[in-house]
C-alpha cells in the first residue's frame, strides 16, 4: 500500500489534533486499553448522563493509527445514546473485519471511514480497534 493511502490527511490531522486528547473534569467511567505487544496505551474517559454520552476524551500514547482512531471515535459518539454508541462500535469493528463493506452503511462512521484500508494491514488492525474495544468495555459498565 502507498503510504499516502494509509496516512491520509484526515488521519494525520486527527493524530496531531489534540481536541479529544485531554482529561475530562467530570466523567462517569474511565477505561484503560492496552496493546501489550506494541505498547499502545490509552485511557478513555466518558461522561454519561441519562443514557447519553455527553462528553468523551482520551489520554495516553500510541501510533498515529491508534491516536487518530480514538479521536475519530470520540467525534462520532458524543451526543449519542449508549445503545447508539455501542451500535457504532460494532459497525466500526465490522468494517475492520470486512464483515460490513456497504459504503452507504459505513457513512455513519464519518471520518472513521478513512480507516477502512487498515483491514488490509494485519499488523495495524489492533492499533485501529484499540479505542473502540476500550469504549465498548466502558459503555458496558
Amino acid at each position: 500500500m502507498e503510504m499516502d493511502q494509509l496516512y491520509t490527511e484526515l488521519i494525520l490531522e486527527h493524530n496531531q489534533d489534540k481536541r479529544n486528547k485531554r482529561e475530562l473534569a467530570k466523567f462517569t467511567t474511565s477505561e484503560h486499553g492496552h496493546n501489550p505487544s506494541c505498547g499502545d496505551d490509552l485511557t478513555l474517559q466518558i461522561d454519561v448522563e441519562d443514557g447519553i454520552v455527553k462528553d468523551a476524551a482520551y489520554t495516553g500514547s500510541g501510533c498515529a493509527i491508534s491516536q487518530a482512531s480514538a479521536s475519530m471515535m470520540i467525534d462520532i459518539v458524543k451526543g449519542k445514546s449508549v445503545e447508539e454508541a455501542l451500535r457504532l462500535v460494532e459497525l466500526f469493528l465490522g468494517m475492520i473485519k470486512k464483515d460490513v463493506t456497504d459504503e452507504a452503511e459505513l457513512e455513519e462512521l464519518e471520518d472513521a471511514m478513512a480507516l477502512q484500508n487498515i483491514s488490509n494491514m494485519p499488523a495495524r488492525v489492533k492499533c485501529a480497534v484499540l479505542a473502540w474495544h476500550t469504549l465498548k468495555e466502558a459503555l458496558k459498565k
Partner: protein
Amino acid sequence: MRPISEAYKDFPILKREHNGHRLIYLDSGATAQIPQMVADRVVNHMLYHNGNPHRGSHILAIEASEAYENARERVVEFINAREREEIIFTRNSTESMNLIAYSYGLNNLQAGDKIVITVAEHHANLVTWQFVANKTGATLEYMYLDESGHLKDGEINKIDEYTKIVAFAHVSNVLGMEFPVKELTDKAHSVGAVVVLDGAQSTPHMKVDMQELDCDFFVFSGHKMCASQGIGVLYGKRALLEAMPPFLLGGDMIEYVKEQTTTFNELPYKFEAGTPNADGAVALHAAMDYLDSFGMDAIEAYEEELVAYVLPKLMDIPHVHVIGSTNAKEKHGVIAFTVDDVHPHDVATILDSKGICVRSGHHCAQPLGAFYKVAASTRLSMYLYTRKEDLDAFLDVLKTVRTVMGFED
C-alpha cells in the same frame, strides 16, 4: 574461512521482493534468517533419518539419537563448555530461563535473600525473577544505568552478602551493549551468588566461552543464530544441575518408574522430558557449522564495521535520537532509536512499505523503556548477511518519515 561479504548470497529469503522493493531484513535481533545449507541439512534429516531419539533399537531411532547427541557435542565445542552433561536442549532462551527459575530459584531462595538484575533485562530474565521473588519472599533489586547505557557507579554494590542470584544480559537486546561480565561475575562469586547470563543476543554475534566467562548458567536461542525456531540451550555448571530437581516430567527423563515413585535419568536427560526437537537440534548444529565457516571473531568485527558505518549517519538525521551509547565500538549490531513526534509503529510501517523490516515496540524490555521514559522505540539489528547498501536504503527511507507523517521537516 569464507569472506563475510559473500554471506548474503546464502539466504534465499533475501532474494524476495516486498511491496515492489528488494526485501531488506534489519530485524535479526528478533530472529535471524536461515541459510540454504541449514535448511538442506534439516530437510535431509527429516526425509531420511527421522526417528524418535533415545527410543527403540531400529536404524532410524539410532540415527535420530546420533543426530541429536552430535548437536549437543557441537554446542559443547561452540561455547567451550566442559562436557555434554552441561548442555540441556530447550525450546528457547525463555524456556531455559524458566527452567533455572523453577528448578534452581524456587528451591534455593528464601525470605531475606536477594536477586539482583539490571533494569535493561529482557522480560525472560525479569518476569521469571519477579515470580521467584514473589514465591520465595526474596527481594528483586535492580542495578540502574546512566544515559549512555552503562551501569551507574556503585550499582554493582547492590550485589552483597544477601544476594543469591545475579542475572543479566551478556548483550542487551535494546542497547546492543555488553555488560561488564567479568566484573559482575567476580563480584557475584565473591559473595557466593550464582550468575545467570542471558546470551540470547551475544551468542549469535561473538565468540562465547563458558570457561572464560565463568557464569553458572547461560542461555541462548537457536533461531537468533541462523537455526530454526523452537530450539534453545541451557548451559549450567554440572554440580548445580546435578543438585536441581527436574523441571518438566514425563518420558525420557526417567530411570525407573513404579506406581507411586520414580527415579530420574542422569544429566542431561533429567531436564529433557518428552520427544525432543531433533530437527531443531540438527538445524542448530548446521547453524554453528555455518557461522564457524566465517569465524565468530570475523562476524563480530564485520558487525562493528556496519555499526560504525550507519550510526553517525543515523545520528545526523534531524529528530532522530539513539538510545544508550552512541559509541559504535560499544554497539553489537543493535541500534534502537526514536523519531520526534512519530510513533515507532508508524516508522516501521513506512519502512515496511519500502521493503525494509525493522522492529518497533518495547522489545520485551518494558522496565528499561520506563526508566529512559521511552515507551517504545524502533530498532534496527544487523547480522552477517547485512550489507552497507541495506543500511543506505534504510537511511534514505528514514529521512522521509516525518514528511510522510505530515511534518514540515
